[in-house]
């Protein structure tokens, strides 16, 4: 496994049709009231108009905070939830409304590694039979051959040899996640959506799995949609990264550029919030601390959805455009798109540093909202939350 091998043959695939393509994909979950006669009173706009391409052999990373729609997006492209609007093309075929046998055949080609392996593994099946089952169902191997492959798979993912005859509950959370990965790999799919696949693992084990995923990718020319909240891991494994916020892609960039030249104010904040395991670097970093929580996707802010927490908007004197006009994802550099009206402000390194420094200084003093009384000095460095923002499920306190 060399460093070069982790950069897949995406250059060759770039000119051809992408393996997966979504066009203004929307997934809305209805909010209903009443018991017998459910009335629709609104919708959680989990994914709200996402157009992305995943090229053959590449890893597209998808990052964002809880509730930004990244998992729902993955579930929609794998056809585990139905798209409300828009389309999904896999290998040139429109799979948005596929059903029955064609859907089943397609499913062998696209697999998913889930976030919670305890919920996705059958508690009454041994790991061995769980790994052999998809091989039999899809006619890939049976009997002794399937068990041989199962043994191979558990070795690959680092489970003990006797795991074949054991049940999911006998394993630790980390080991269960390995079993989930082994199962996804069993049918040798072309496309794998990995949803927080390594998040539950300890760092030393996580590195093993990340390397394993890279190794398998170059071996079988796999295409990954890699979802995680850990930006360091995503950047490590991905060729390109899409940053999501409240159901929308706000930035799409080659992974190297995302850290070096983030163009969206949300990405800037996200990147600066990721701790770096080096005290020398940490002590010098400017911390851009966002105020408040992510607003509810059932009732997203108007205009740019990030405007309620946006530090750049504050630095620019709260321009009205942010609250009324929704920014489109536009290309500012080769392969680098951003959905922000004022992204040009962040394009130059010097100007960006200036703005970030100013905003970081402000985030230390302006800890409360203007309409609130000043707090005792003790709290001056503590960032306060926007009282208007609340999580889905949170009850407003007004």
């Amino acid at each position, binding site marked *: *496994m*060399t*460093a070069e091998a*982790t950069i897949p043959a995406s250059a060759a695939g770039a000119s051809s049709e992408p393996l997966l393509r979504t066009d203004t994909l929307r997934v809305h979950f209805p909010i209903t009231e009443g018991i017998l006669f459910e009335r629709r009173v609104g919708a959680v706009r989990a994914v709200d108009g996402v157009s992305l391409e995943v090229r053959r052999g590449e890893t597209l990373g998808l990052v964002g*905070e*809880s509730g930004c729609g990244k998992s729902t997006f993955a579930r929609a492209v794998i056809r585990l939830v139905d798209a409300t609007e828009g389309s999904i093309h896999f290998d040139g075929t429109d799979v948005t409304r596929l059903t029955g046998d064609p859907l089943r055949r397609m499913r062998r080609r696209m697999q998913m590694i889930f976030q919670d392996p305890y919920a996705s593994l059958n508690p009454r099946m041994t790991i061995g039979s769980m790994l052999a089952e998809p091989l039999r169902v899809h006619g890939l191997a049976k009997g002794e051959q399937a068990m041989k492959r199962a043994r191979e798979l558990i070795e690959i993912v680092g489970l003990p040899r006797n795991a074949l005859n054991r049940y999911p509950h006998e394993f*630790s959370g*980390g080991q269960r996640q390995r079993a989930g990965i082994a199962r996804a790999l069993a049918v040798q799919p072309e496309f794998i959506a990995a949803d927080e696949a390594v998040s539950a693992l*300890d*760092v*030393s*084990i*996580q*590195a*093993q799995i*990340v*390397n394993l995923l890279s190794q398998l990718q170059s071996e079988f020319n796999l295409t990954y949609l890699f979802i995680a*909240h850990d*930006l*360091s891991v995503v*950047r*490590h*494994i991905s060729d390109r990264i899409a940053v999501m916020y409240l159901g929308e892609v706000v930035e799409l960039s080659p*992974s*190297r550029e995302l*850290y070096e030249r983030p163009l969206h104010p949300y990405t800037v*904040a*996200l990147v*600066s919030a*990721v*701790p*770096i*395991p*080096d*005290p*020398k*670097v*940490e*002590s010098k970093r400017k*911390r851009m*601390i*966002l105020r408040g*929580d*992510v607003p509810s996707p059932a009732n997203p802010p108007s205009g740019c959805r990030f405007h309620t927490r946006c530090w750049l908007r504050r630095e620019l004197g709260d321009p009205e455009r942010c609250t009324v006009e929704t920014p489109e994802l536009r290309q500012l550099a080769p392969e680098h798109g951003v959905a922000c009206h004022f992204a040009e402000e962040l394009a130059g390194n010097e100007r960006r540093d200036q703005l970030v420094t100013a905003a970081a200084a402000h985030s230390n003093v302006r*800890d*409360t909202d203007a309409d*609130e009384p000043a*707090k*005792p000095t*003790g*709290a001056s*460095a*503590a*960032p*306060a*939350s926007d009282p208007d923002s609340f*999580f889905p499920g*949170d*009850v407003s*306190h007004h």
Partner: protein
Amino acid sequence: MSRTAPDPEALLSVRDLEVTFGSGDRVVHAVNGISYDLAPGETLGIVGESGCGKSVSSLAIMRLLPKPAARVRSGSVILEGQDLLDLSDEEMRRIRGDQMAMIFQDPMTSLNPVLPIERQLTEVLETHRKLKRSGAVDRAVELLELVGIPAAKNRLRDYPHQFSGGMRQRVMIAIALACDPQLLIADEPTTALDVTIQAQILELMRTAVTERGTALILITHDLGVVAGMAQRINVMYAGHIVERATTDELYGRPRHPYTVGLLRSIPRLDEGRGELVPIQGQPPDLSRQIIGCPFADRCFNVLDRCREEMPPLEQAPSAADEHLVACWNPAEGERLVPSGFESELAS
């Protein structure tokens, strides 16, 4: 180190602490004789992977281990000259929440879901500070403001489920700080939170402990989080402290092969796409007796001696003062550059 007397200057001195779970045939040796000191106002990071004993040792300090499943076999935990392990439950209750407090990973399970947060804040104040009801409520509002909960007065009657994850963790911190403890133990306080919220909470904790001179033990698996928070770090593996040094020294010149392995296995956001070097194998089964160093089977520097005798935690050769390592054959301590990084720069 284990035989040295507790440092009279220290706020907390842990000596030879040993904790096991279970009995009879299956005894899990969770903590195997750890010793360390914590100075007043110091922030100590305890890092290690699942099952290394970092949480269990801290629960032992708080005397919160489940009984009778867990047993403290030996050792002492001396807080301001007093051995906590000798105290009765009643005496311990008077100290917990007053002189020492703890914050857990998941505030949803550590806050009481059927009580408004006001009651949970005032309870600790009424118990330890003997405040009257109205005084306690005023103080509760102050505390909520201190941890950055907007419109604090209006939120007193709210229940934990009415707060977001980050806000719940702020409430937990407010409760923990209520009586101005000298020692705060935070067990993975930001692991369940999103990264931008994590940054808020870390900033809050940093400010709170600095202003009040509270000593903090920060337990985490995240080497990034401690890098920006702790002055000193204990690295734990299989119930042992295998390395202990100041933060700069530990990251700059790691000596234990396990620490080196950990630092090589994490991707860094600020560096290129070099290859990760995972630690081979898995942590040992702590229900089996381990002879010698528990890391020997995964170690790149292993000697025959490692499989026979557990190395003591001692001053590392040619290292800065108080850089302790438990290894017969420590790494050289070169500054780590992820392998493959140079080749990427060249490409």
